[in-house]
């Protein structure tokens, strides 16, 4: 998180706000409720309290406008900049302006959710700048989040409590604020790993890292900032070079990516890989380019699917340890890279030869995910 340089914070905890006008995109009641809940996000974790007034000048003046609206920061039409707000100081300080060339919506994931945009802008109105944490509400780019389950991320809680301290009622936010996974965490256990046209993708919770092998550059993103349809906390992922698709699996559902685009017609059922009906969840999937076989790890067993013949191979399922001698722990993720198979178990990564399946090394999780 970061705060505005200088002492930009309110010297009082009881603040007023006024909604000066409305957008035609939603009913006035929906705007009122979105604004009220967006302020409550910050009140829940600080001593700040917000009271609405209907005339005169409030600490936080809220308005909808387009293009040049007299503050020296003109809006830019649909998309692009959605809104802006000013840090706490006299006059325009604290005010929040929303670009009415945008389509603001009350609940739908399409368009821009006014509650989410307003909650972000009110972070500025209270003294927060943009955060570099891709999971933070104060991250500069808009990401749709499920507003029914929205909980202010820990990075934002830390930032606002740095300015104003915790909620004086002593009741912390329930449920606990989500923490953005840290690739330097030695106890990091990954949900899934896959290649994607030469990049390596590491999935954890609501996030994924994309890394370019041999480069120290690693980006972290919210899954939903790229693919709103793809669920968080996935079980497994793999790239089929045969189909030039990445398959993402959660529970009994399968989604597909073609490059960075979600393929229409998905999700499909796990039965597309001819797995027995009793298989309700897979732990990891390894795509073996040397044989066009897809290995599904289900608890301590492996099912091998022959992609060309579209059937599960005879003699499977087999115990994991029979296929990968020395792999005793539960496998949570797997991928093949440059002639080696990498199986993730706990915070360790086990390297096997792709042809002889001999265990060669036990490495740390972040061997490919530089800290």
């Amino acid at each position: 998180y970061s705060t505005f340089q200088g002492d930009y914070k309110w010297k009082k905890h009881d603040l007023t706000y006024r909604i000066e006008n409305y957008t035609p995109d939603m009913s006035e009641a929906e705007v009122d409720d979105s604004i009220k809940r967006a302020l409550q996000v910050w009140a829940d974790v600080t001593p700040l309290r917000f009271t609405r007034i209907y005339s005169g000048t409030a600490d936080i003046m809220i308005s909808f406008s387009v293009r040049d609206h007299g503050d020296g920061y003109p809006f830019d039409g649909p998309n692009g900049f959605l809104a802006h707000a000013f840090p706490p100081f006299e006059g325009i300080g604290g005010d929040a302006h929303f670009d009415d060339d945008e389509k603001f919506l009350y609940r739908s994931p399409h368009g821009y959710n006014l509650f989410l945009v307003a909650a972000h802008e009110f972070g500025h109105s209270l003294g927060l700048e943009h955060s570099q944490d891709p999971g933070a509400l104060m991250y500069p780019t808009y990401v749709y989040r499920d507003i029914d389950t929205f909980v202010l991320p820990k990075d934002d809680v830390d930032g606002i409590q740095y300015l104003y301290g915790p909620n004086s009622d002593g009741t912390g936010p329930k449920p606990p604020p989500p923490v953005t996974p840290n690739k330097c965490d030695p106890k990091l256990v990954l949900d899934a790993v896959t290649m994607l046209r030469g990049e390596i993708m590491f999935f954890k919770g609501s996030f994924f890292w994309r890394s370019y092998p041999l480069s120290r550059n690693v980006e972290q993103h919210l899954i939903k900032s790229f693919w709103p349809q793809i669920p968080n906390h996935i079980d497994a992922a793999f790239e089929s070079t045969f189909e030039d698709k990445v398959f993402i699996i959660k529970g009994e559902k399968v989604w597909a990516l073609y490059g960075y685009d979600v393929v229409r017609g998905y999700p499909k059922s796990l039965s597309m890989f001819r797995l027995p009906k009793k298989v309700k969840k897979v732990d990891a999937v390894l795509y073996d380019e040397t044989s066009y076989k897809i290995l599904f790890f289900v608890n301590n067993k492996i099912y091998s699917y022959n992609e060309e013949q579209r059937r599960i191979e005879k003699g499977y399922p087999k115990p994991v340890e029979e296929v990968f001698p020395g792999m005793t722990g539960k496998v949570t993720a797997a991928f093949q890279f440059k002639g080696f198979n990498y199986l993730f178990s706990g915070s360790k990564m086990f390297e096997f030869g792709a042809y002889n399946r001999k265990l060669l090394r036990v490495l740390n999780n972040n061997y490919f995910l530089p800290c």
Partner: protein
Amino acid sequence: YTSPIAPPADKDKESIAVNYLTQLYGLPKQTNSDAEKRSSAMSLRLKEMQQFFKLKVTGKLDEETLDLMKKPRCGVPDVAA
């Protein structure tokens, strides 16, 4: 949804970048005719933006950087707001 919006046909990449960096990274309005100065000012702000978003810091307007510039966002500057 929030995936990068289709590139506006009538805006070239350069003007998208200049507008973005001027509004959000303090790129001085392009008054000086000195092309050399302008491009170094642009490269410096590009590096700041790439640094902020943890992209590869190249100072060049590569695809990743341009994609990010097209994403809907807040209009408050990212640095030295």
